[in-house]
């Protein structure tokens, strides 16, 4: 017996729009089943995971804080994924962004208030991510090296570099030997948006990134080139786009936004460098990018859905004693469901009996 995928002739745009919602619904049912197997009530879990966070204003702020870096990274990934380039290393680009972005805030610790520190930090963060993102692109263009492997392996290089910095040269001398840098001065931090809660200006940057990306992809010639390069490389060449330049540009934008996300995290809610800044945001953003169908508006929604699973997971750990790994499991289930929903919208599954052909 074997399975075959047969293209469906007419798929309406409504069906395509509804596919991720089906995916979320099915993922919820599967998640509920797992919770039941763990001996807890799926309904109680559903309430803790999804209902309470969405009805509590403090929790809503928390969701926005968690969604912020995911939106920024995932909109960056869109440039690569749409062009059929596989940037798996946003996590590394994010870390290098935090390193570059922290240079000036760390150099100004203990100084008088200087208004240009924060913007320079954000720009340097983006620059660091862009430069780090250009490495896999350059190696691919120049030597034909797989960008998947290079971008992924560079994640570990970045992690260990950050680890070295915060344990070595950048360690806070007054920090009781903890592997952290000194705290940034308040002028180097993103302003809070609410008097109570942790919502910071990063969400505005994130929504701006999504809006600009929407405009670039749908209205500019450059975005058109990205889409054509992904659909049909020869047509992109015919259209006058240089494939090498597009590859490097897409990776640099992607890396730049990951770097920006990193420094937004640091200046928005952490306030210093430590060995673990992101905890896998760069990888989670891949799920977000696909959950949002590589579309900026979809990504904003996707980021909030993922933020909800993270926040709900933490709440469930506290109130229901459910393991935090359940959150990761659920994110995995969700990604599979989204990909399957997309595949089954475009194709119809046919079971063919018999041994072969």
């Amino acid at each position, binding site marked *: 017996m074997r399975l075959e995928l047969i293209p469906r002739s007419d798929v309406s745009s409504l069906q395509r729009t509804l596919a991720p919602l089906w995916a979320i619904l099915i993922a919820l049912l599967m998640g509920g089943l797992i919770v039941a197997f763990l001996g807890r009530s799926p309904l109680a879990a559903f309430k803790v995971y999804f209902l309470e966070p969405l009805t509590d204003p403090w929790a809503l702020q928390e969701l926005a804080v968690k969604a912020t870096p995911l939106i920024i990274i995932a909109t960056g990934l869109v440039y690569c994924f749409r062009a059929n380039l596989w940037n798996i290393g946003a996590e590394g680009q994010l870390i290098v962004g935090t390193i570059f972005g922290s240079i000036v805030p760390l150099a100004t610790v203990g100084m008088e208030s200087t208004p240009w520190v924060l913007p320079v930090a954000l720009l340097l963060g983006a620059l660091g991510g862009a430069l780090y993102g250009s490495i896999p692109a350059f190696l691919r263009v120049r030597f034909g090296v797989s960008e998947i492997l290079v971008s992924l392996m560079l994640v570990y290089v970045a992690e260990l570099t950050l680890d070295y910095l915060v344990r070595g040269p950048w360690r806070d001398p007054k920090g009781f030997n903890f592997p952290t840098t000194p705290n940034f001065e308040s002028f180097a931090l993103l302003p809070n948006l609410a008097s109570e809660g942790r919502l910071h200006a990063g969400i505005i940057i994130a929504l701006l990134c999504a809006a600009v990306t929407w405009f670039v992809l749908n*209205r*500019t*010639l450059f975005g058109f080139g990205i889409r054509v390069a992904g*659909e*049909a490389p020869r047509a992109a060449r*015919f*259209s006058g786009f240089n494939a090498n330049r597009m590859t490097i540009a897409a990776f640099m934008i992607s890396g730049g936004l990951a770097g920006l996300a990193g420094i937004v995290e640091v200046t928005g809610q952490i306030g210093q460098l430590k060995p673990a800044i992101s905890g896998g945001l760069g990888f989670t953003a891949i799920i977000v990018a696909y959950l949002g169908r590589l579309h900026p508006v979809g990504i904003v929604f996707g980021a909030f859905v993922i933020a909800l699973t993270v926040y709900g997971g933490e709440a469930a750990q506290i109130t229901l004693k459910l393991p935090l790994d359940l959150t990761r499991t659920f994110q995995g289930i969700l990604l599979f469901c989204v990909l399957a929903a997309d595949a089954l919208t475009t194709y119809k599954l046919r079971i*063919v009996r018999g041994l072969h052909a």
Partner: protein
Amino acid sequence: MAEVEGANAPLCVLDGIVKRFGDLTANDHISLSLRAGEIHALLGENGAGKSTLVKILDGLLAPDEGRILWQGRPITLASPEDAATLGIGMVFQHFSLFDNLTVAENIAVAMPAGVGLRVLNKRIMELGERYGLALDPKREVWTLSAGERQRIEIVRALLREPKLLILDEPTSVLTPQEADTLFATLEELARQGCALLYISHRLEEVTRLCDRATILRGGRVVAMCNPREETPQKIASLMVGTAIPPLHDRDNRPADVRLSLRRLNAAPADLHGIALKDVSLDVRGGEILGLAGVAGNGQSELFEILSGERAAPQRGMVLIDGEECGLDGIDTRRRKGAAFLPEERNGHAAVGALSLPNNVVLSRHATSDIAPRNVIAFDRARAFSDAIIAKFDVRTPSPLAEAGKLSGGNLQKFVVGREIIGNPRVLVIDNPTWGVDAGAAVLIRQALIDLAAAGTAVLMISQDLDEIFAIADRIAVIHHGAVTAPRNVRTVAREEIGLMMTGGQGASHAA
């Protein structure tokens, strides 16, 4: 016609086949019968319902109404595998082969598991001898010509010992000589009792080869005839529904040289490419220069360098309107007044997943007002696209349809229109009517004639000699990357050109 039951009973009968897609009835009560030993032509314009019918016979689509009788028994075909098991073989217009695998390996992947390569090699050789399908099982596919590649597809189908073989536009990529070899093979197959369903738009070959013809128009059978007793003109008008207008010739007053190649030498861009050897050519405003040649002799390499998709080795090797532009990119050349149209519609000249207006942006963003300051003005692209649709009679499900939803002929009309609206001074076009129906071909050829009459220099690369002789003023031949000196089409003999195409006499370089 009188049908005798018994010995000459039909092998396969389609009885009242209906297939609907939404509001569109692609097949409207189609009935036809196929007999062993007969070559039956299925004719019709694009969109007439030929592909749908063939897909039904191949088990890819299920009919909404009607029956299929196989040797008198009603059958259901649930998949191509069902069809193959029954004895229905398909040879598609587009080859589905792996370039880096050998002939035998390519055949093995399509066979049921458990057939060893050694056994297969032997059977390939046997079939080759029996039907004149010479193939070396151990050659890698990328080293083969289009004709040889097609033989792989045919052998692949024959190994399943079909009783009915369906061929979709089999000669579209072949030289006249290769086509003759194919016809001999098909006639031999028919003699041995195989039924053949032959789909083509080249009416000359249908009148030569086929015993019966069924003509479809708008999903219905409009006529059945013996093609040997009809003229191609008569059949063409049955297909289109009206008389096909003859091409209007023009006063031919070639003007200044608009496009030149000067001693162009270029190494191949990739492993499987062809090197261009010392190519020199002048195309004058007002003329159509036809470049004949068997596919894979450097046409695509030449097109790339002419268009600027790939830079020439030196600036002075390509001249547009007397200006050296060998190192310029395609957009710069377009701004100098040149337009280009590659052979492959899907994935090169157009992107199937993009809407028609976006496909206008694809090649006209540098030479129109649709992308001022690199921002796309979608309403202008839409207006441009609508103008093409109206002027070139493009039939599309909607003005915003994805290019991939159009039939081959209609998409080709669209991309030709896109390039020639605004009268470029130079047009380089590769196989302008490849795989399109008769009606679209006439419209496109007339558009090229009119364009030349308006003063454009047209370089038309084509594998269709009939096309070159129909509309070109001069003809040159490309063979192994070298181009012969152009000759006047009114004085040169076809046989001579055919010889040059295969590297025979006269295939020397142009000075």
